[in-house]
Structure formats: C-alpha cells, structure tokens
C-alpha cells in the first residue's frame, strides 16, 4: 500500500520546511489555492493524506482533484496545517497516523456522500457560483439490517429523526441527517456504515499513534465539525463525526492499544449545537467508573485532557476494538491487564447487559429471540425435546428490544440489566427458560409450548370449546380439518 502525503507550503517557516526534507511529506507550494497539483500524483499511489490550511481551501475543488487522481475523497484525511505549525514532531505523528487511517479505509459508495454547500467563502469562491462538496454520511446495508425482524434501534437513537421504520425496512432521509455517527455505534450488527467512522480505520490510526509517538501519548477523540481547542502536548487527535457517538467501550479501547490516556472532547466553548455533549460525558463517566472499579485512576479517560502523567497499561491488543459488539472483548481485556477481580459494574452506558426471564411469567413465545438483533437470545430444543431459550451476554448490547416486544413484559416476564457482569461473560451461553411443547393430536407436530397453553387456559378457562379448538390441533391441521 503506497500512501502519499502532500502538504501546502504556504506560510511554512523555513525551519519547518527544512525539517520535512527527509520525511514522507512532500511540500507543494500553494496547494490550498491550486489543488490541480493533485493530478500529478503517481498512479501507483493507493491512498493520500493532505495537510492544508483549512480556511483557504475550497473543498469542492480539492475533492474534484482527488477524484480525478483516482482516489476517494472520503478516504483522504485532511490535517489542518495551522494546528501543527512549528511542531514538526507532532505533525510527523499525525501524518503517520493519518496515513495508517487512509491505508485502512475500506472505500465508500455514492450513498455515503452527502452534498453540502459552503457556509463560508474563500477568496476563490467569491468569484464563482457556490459548488457543493461532499461529506461522509451513513448508509445502510439492507442485506445485514435487521429491520425485517422489527429492529429500529437507529430510529430511536438518531437525534435528527433521519430514520424511520417502514414495513420491515429502514427509510433514511439523508437530507435531514447531520452525520454524527451515533447510528453507527448504536447498530449492534454493523449494518450502518459511515466512512468517517470506520472501525478498522480508527483502530489503525490509534495503533500508528502509539507506535510512532515517542513516550506516553494520549488519544483525543474530537468532533470533526465543531470548533475545537488545540490538543495539549503529547495528545494526538482522532477525529470522529461527533464525540456523541463515542461509547464507553470506545473510550476505553485505546488504553488496550497502548495509549496512556484517552479524552473525549466536548465541543469548544459554545458547546454542541445538537446537544450531544451529554452523551460523550455519560460514556466517559461510565468508563471512569469502570476504571476505578478495576483499581485504575479515573482520569485515564476524561473529557478534559491535561498533561500526560501516567504510563500506558500493559499492552493487550484485541481484535476489532471499535467494531460492533466489541464491548465484551474490550472490558474483558481491560480486566486482564489490570488483573482486577471486579465482579460487575452497572450503568446505563455499559453497552452490555444481562437478560433475565421470569419463568412463571414467560410463555416461551420466543418473540424476544426473533427480535434480538445480535443473536444473544436464541431458541432451540434440548435433547429431551424441551423448547429452550438461552442467552449469551457476550453478544448482548443492552438494547432492550426484547423487552419492547415481549407481550408479557407487564407481568415481569423479561428484564434487562445494563451491567458489565464478568461472571456472566465468562460463563457464556446459559439457558434462561424451558418448556415442554404440546403436540398436535393429529400430526404430532408442536402446537405451542405447554406454558403458553397454560397461559391461554388461564385467560380462556371459561370457554372450554374454544380452548379445545386451539389446543388440540396445530395450525396446519386446524386449517385442513
């Protein structure tokens, strides 16, 4: 994989320019104003990183030149040259990390591109009509999406109401969407993707930060659209569409990759214009609580980055730390490296849960199983012929969909505790409930679980004729009789 790094030479101090001579960065004078230079890229280049003066760039022009060079603009990290002025060491780390991110970019398609018109003007754009540029937006893989089973987690999570559930599929209004990435971290099966928050690319970027930075380094999650304060020394920026999308496992995962500290930065002074700061703060609060329970200082994960004062935890890289359903792996990894014996930590932001079924109230209708988007709840038959419902906490994201669909939830048939329960995680899949099934008098196929028959009997006990009709034969035989 060949990654090219181009930097605009405008305003570059002679010392800084000299310091870049032996680096992978190629300085191109006036690149911000004349991005046509991008078309001179070597055809063998697979990925690109740009270091530009953001306030001088006409995004649509740069994007056009990137496409003309055969690359995907949504996969080209653009660093702000002004942020790294006078600090070539930090620039070097940022460039290496951005290169890793670009190299790991899996590609996008037109559904991922949302047109926006500029809300500011450059010297060049003052003399032309406004041109749209394209920002990364989410797209749904309908082959993966579980909307057909009733899942509507993205609908409830989206702060812009860009999603609606319509007859077993998710309708997405890109026009309404202000891409924040919350749908990406909410979807437990990875059906929603956003090129600006690709799990593989993020993991690669943080790995590179840790590998290249000399000494302990902090990873700073920062909103890509909000005004931001500059990062303190020894902190490296990882841009995400909105820090409101950062979950507690995301906030902890960089520690396992070798970062000394993690900060999830709320938007500067004026705050988030969409009111999503509180989401980031809640995720950080839970992560800090978890760390304290494991005997680690809570400031390893923070919203207020200060000077790095700690050394990294022993490295324990895990697979796909930012992928869907990574929470169990991340928390278990953290428990291992800290050698903690903490049993459980509860909290709404845990991103993990434990489902309990009240045997006396559950009718084994298995609607919870059908709705569960991750397969944490599963149904099957035991060797003794009993219908069983089992549960694996590793796959549970505490989405509460099982409670939403349970017809007996009012009787307490099912409940979900939002908790990181290490004993349950270690135990793996366990049986929650079971029942014999009532067999059809004609074909001996199952009619319904016995506990469901009992429940129907409770309700229809005073109508033995109807009860007999419902319980004697299965649906198929009832239709043919």
């Amino acid at each position, binding site marked *: 994989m060949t990654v090219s790094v181009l930097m605009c030479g405008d305003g570059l101090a002679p010392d800084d320019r000299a310091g870049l001579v032996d680096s992978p960065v190629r300085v191109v004078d006036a690149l911000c104003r004349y991005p046509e230079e991008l078309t001179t890229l070597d055809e063998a280049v697979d990925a690109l990183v740009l270091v530009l003066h953001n306030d001088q760039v006409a995004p649509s022009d740069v994007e*056009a030149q990137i496409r003309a060079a055969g690359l*995907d*603009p949504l996969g080209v990290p653009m660093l702000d040259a002004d942020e790294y002025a006078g600090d070539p060491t930090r620039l070097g780390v940022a460039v290496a990390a951005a290169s890793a991110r670009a190299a790991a970019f899996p590609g996008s*398609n037109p559904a991922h591109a949302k047109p926006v018109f500029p809300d500011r003007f450059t010297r060049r754009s003052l003399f032309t*009509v*406004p041109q749209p540029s394209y920002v990364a937006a989410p797209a749904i893989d309908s082959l993966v999406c579980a909307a057909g089973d009733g899942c509507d987690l993205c609908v409830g999570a989206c702060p812009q109401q860009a999603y609606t559930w319509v007859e077993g599929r998710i309708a997405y209004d890109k026009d309404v969407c202000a891409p924040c990435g919350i749908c990406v971290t909410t979807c437990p099966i990875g059906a929603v993707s956003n090129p600006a928050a690709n799990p593989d690319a993020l993991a690669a970027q943080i790995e590179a930060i840790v590998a290249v930075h000399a000494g302990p380094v902090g990873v700073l999650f920062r909103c890509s659209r909000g005004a931001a304060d500059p990062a303190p020394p020894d902190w490296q920026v990882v841009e995400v569409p909105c820090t409101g999308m950062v979950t507690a496992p995301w906030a902890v995962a960089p520690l396992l990759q070798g970062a000394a500290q993690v900060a999830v930065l709320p938007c500067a002074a004026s705050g988030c214009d969409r009111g999503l700061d509180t989401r980031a703060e809640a995720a950080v609060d839970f992560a800090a609580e978890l760390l304290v329970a494991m005997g680690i200082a809570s400031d390893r994960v923070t919203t207020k980055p200060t000077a790095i004062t700690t050394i990294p935890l022993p490295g324990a890289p895990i697979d796909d730390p930012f992928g869907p359903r990574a929470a169990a792996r991340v928390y278990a990894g953290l428990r291992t490296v800290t050698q903690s014996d903490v049993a459980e930590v509860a909290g709404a932001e845990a991103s993990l849960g434990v489902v309990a079924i009240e045997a006396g109230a559950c009718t084994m209708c298995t609607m919870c199983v059908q709705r569960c988007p991750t397969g944490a709840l599963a149904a099957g038959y035991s060797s003794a012929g009993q219908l069983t419902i089992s549960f694996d906490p590793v796959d549970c994201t505490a989405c509460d969909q099982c409670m939403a669909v349970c017809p007996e939830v009012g009787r307490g048939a099912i409940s979900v505790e939002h908790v990181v329960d290490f004993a349950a995680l270690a135990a793996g899949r366990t049986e929650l409930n079971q029942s014999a099934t009532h067999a059809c008098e004609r074909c001996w196929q199952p009619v319904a679980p016995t506990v469901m028959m009992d429940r129907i009997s409770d309700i229809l006990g005073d109508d033995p004729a109807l009860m007999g009709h419902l319980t004697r034969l299965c649906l198929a035989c009832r239709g043919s009789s």
Partner: protein
Amino acid sequence: MTVEAPSWAAIAGTRQGLYRLFGKALLPPDGGVVSTLAAAAAYLEEQDLARFPFYAAWLSFRSALAIAPTVDELAVAYVRLFASGVDGALCPPTESWYKAEARFGGTAKLVAGLEADYRALGLAVVGTAEPPDHASTQLEAMSALCAREAEAWRTQQDPAAADTLEYQDRFLRDHLATWFGDFAARVHHTDPMGFYDAVTGAVDAFVIQEVDLVRAMRRQLGAA
C-alpha cells in the same frame, strides 16, 4: 493553471447530457451505438465530472465502453437480460415490474399514473417503442427537465429554474430512485462485469447522487 468552477447552468447542461447518454445506453442497441456513446462520454468527461461522487462508477462505464463490444454482442446481452426469459425478462428495465402487482391491474395503474406525471411536467412519450415506465424513457424525461433548468439559469429566470428543480426532485423520488437500485442489483447478479452491469452501475450511482444533489440545490435556493 486554475480550473474555473462550472456555473449551475453548465452543471444542469452536463446532467442533461448524462441522463440522455444513459437513456440511450439502455435502449435496444443499434449500429454505431458504442461509438456514439463513446463520443458523447468523451465530451461529458470534459465537463468536470470529477466534481461528483459517482465519478468512480463513471470510470467503470468508460472502461466498459473502451472494450468496444460489437452491436451483435450487445444485442445478445440486451435480449438475454431485458427482453426474454422463461418467466419474462431476467432483469426487466421497467418501474412497474418492481413496484406493481400485475395480476390486479397494477401495471396499467402505475403506467397511467406515470403518464399523468409526464403530462403534468409538460412532457409526452412519443417516438419511442419503449413503455413510459422503461428506464430509458424515465432517464430521457429527466434529461428534458435538466435542459429546461439549464435554459432557465442561462436566461436568469431563477424562479423557473427552482421550479424545474422541484419537478426533478419529485420525479426522482416518486419514480426513478424508487426502483433503479433494485434493477441495477439484479443486473449485477445476472451480468457481473458485463457492459450492462457497468451501465446500470453508473446510472445507479448517478441517480443516488442526483437525489441528494437536487434536494441540496433546492435547499440552497431556499426552496426545500
């Protein structure tokens, strides 16, 4: 040297050409079609297409044109994909196949509604053997609307241009964008890496882009 950003009239003109080109590519092939398409594509390539995210799909389309299949090869592929099969065509290029229940008169109802929509836009389907809900007919209709928009921008009739954008927005969201993705996916599974896979892939990417772009332009004009 700096490349000037295109005006909205120029963009509308380019979009008109793209719709027309793609509409032509989805008609039954006749002699010289490939060279005609290649010449039109070469002209459109000069219109700064790299400004739009469908450019990668466009390059695939250009590559398919560069292979220069013969008209006989195209005719065989066209009939196999779009015109014949045991249970009808493998990949019917018509909206009604994807959205209407034929047994209950759904096709006729959809086509009648579509013709009414054409009339409301000041258009009529004449001079073509393809049905009103055929992909090429719908692409040609969008081409006509883009031509109208380009003319409005050129003559500085901004309200008329905004009106035309609204018609395009409605037509795309009511018709073309609602079924073309399913059609393109069907072609992709039936004719992977073939000429018509490249065509429908490019059109699908273009239509996705158009739905977003037209709405964004309307919003920019304060009309959406």
